[in-house]
């Protein structure tokens, strides 16, 4: 267990590599109850939320979820979040470390903000996740990637989305806190399911090329620099009616000064966050923001920002690890293919 943002979090159970393998081959259950769960009521909620994020919230159909970003006036990312349309309200999942600031930000613009501190959040991830959940809630099988639904699991009223943070098929399940242990036990009783901690969640998301807020994106990075331009809705891109719109439009038109890229170091040494990236002449080229040894590939992988001219695939760069230059190539992400149930 480790302390994080006021929570005590499970880092590992049987071991990170075994838990990682469970998510890639079977099903892994993560307790991510530290994440902030917020709902927005009111007919105006979508329109008002659009003042804070670049996603097409007004165009989000009932029963669907999207990934979006709270932006500041410089186009920097204040947090990344999921927004689901539950019909009569919007349901948001935000990062724990940003939750207090996000809620204050929402309340400054919206009435009808409810924080669901009384709900736990579990993520069931892996190629067997659908089979496992369907035994307990048959309706889960018909859901597609980024669908949301209210399902009864073991008698508990759960808000379920078919999504996750591993690159695998799976679900995130919001559960009344009083029922969470019971639902977790039901899921863990299925033979395919193993409990997994946040260390495995990190290696899984890194292989999937997904950003960790605070590492790979923060208030100084724009969606265009971060390669998250796809999270800007088409209508929103035309209207530019979100914070930092002018700066983001300029970066779309002329390119950003730096870009988030995947990097594959030669050799075995992993480059961790903060490692300096140098170009062919040894000049500063950027910084690693996340890195590990990929349990699936058995080789080091990392994410970092480099000068835009160095961002094309297969560009040769150097990583300064403990004073030595280690060659690395810019590599396409995800490092391990996504397997979403689209």
């Amino acid at each position: 267990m480790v302390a994080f943002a006021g929570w005590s979090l499970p880092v590992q159970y049987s071991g990170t590599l075994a838990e990682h393998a469970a998510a890639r081959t079977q099903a892994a259950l993560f307790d991510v109850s530290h994440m902030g769960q917020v709902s927005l009521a009111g007919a105006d909620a979508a329109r008002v939320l659009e003042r804070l994020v670049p996603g097409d919230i007004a165009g989000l159909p009932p029963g669907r979820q999207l990934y979006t970003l709270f932006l500041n006036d410089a186009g920097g990312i204040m947090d990344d979040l999921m927004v689901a349309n539950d019909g009569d309200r919007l349901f948001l999942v935000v990062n724990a470390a940003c939750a207090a600031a996000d809620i204050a930000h929402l309340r400054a613009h919206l009435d009808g903000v409810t924080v669901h501190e009384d709900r736990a959040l579990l993520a069931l991830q892996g190629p067997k996740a659908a089979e496992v959940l369907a035994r307990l809630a048959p309706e889960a099988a018909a859901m597609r990637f980024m669908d949301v639904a209210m399902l009864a699991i073991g008698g508990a009223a759960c808000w379920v989305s078919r999504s996750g943070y591993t690159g695998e098929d799976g679900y995130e399940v919001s559960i009344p806190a009083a029922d969470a242990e019971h639902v977790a036990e039901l899921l863990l009783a299925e033979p395919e399911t193993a409990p997994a901690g946040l260390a495995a969640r990190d290696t899984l998301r890194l292989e999937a090329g997904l950003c960790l807020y605070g590492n790979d994106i923060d208030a100084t990075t724009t969606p265009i620099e971060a390669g998250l331009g796809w999270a800007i809705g088409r209508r929103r891109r035309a209207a530019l009616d979100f914070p930092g719109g002018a700066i983001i439009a300029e970066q779309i038109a002329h390119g950003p000064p730096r870009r988030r890229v995947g990097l594959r170091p030669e050799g075995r040494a992993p480059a961790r966050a903060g490692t300096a990236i140098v170009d062919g002449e040894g000049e500063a080229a950027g910084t690693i923001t996340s890195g590990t040894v990929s349990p699936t590939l058995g080789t080091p992988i990392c994410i970092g920002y480099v000068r835009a001219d160095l961002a094309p695939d297969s560009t040769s760069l150097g990583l300064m690890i403990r004073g030595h230059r280690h060659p690395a190539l810019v590599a396409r992400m995800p490092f391990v293919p996504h397997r979403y149930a689209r």
Partner: protein
Amino acid sequence: MADTRFTTDHEWVRLEDDGTLTVGITDYAQDALGDIVFVELPEVDREVAEGESCATVESTKAASDIYAPASGRIAEINELVVEDPGLINRDAQGEAWFWRMEPADGFDFESLMDEEAYQALLETL
């Protein structure tokens, strides 16, 4: 029979019959580190000072420095743990030794903790 002693940095140090030291990390250390995925060992013939960082171990959780328990010359390194870092998790105090070294004159093996003292240290953690 070779005597094995321990450091407060959770390394084991075995005094071989020829006077060299074999160094590795303890079972406690491998368990605390979690799954080990990378090891960098010192170069053979490198002269190291007691307390100097001369190897790096990285687990899925973190990177850790491994320190020289004595001043001296690195005589041999264990390529097996470089090729298969998971060996450290499986056999930390056996096959997964890190390096052998010739200690400098004046090294006092008895100054390291014996098994009993090390177990006592673990009980305080």
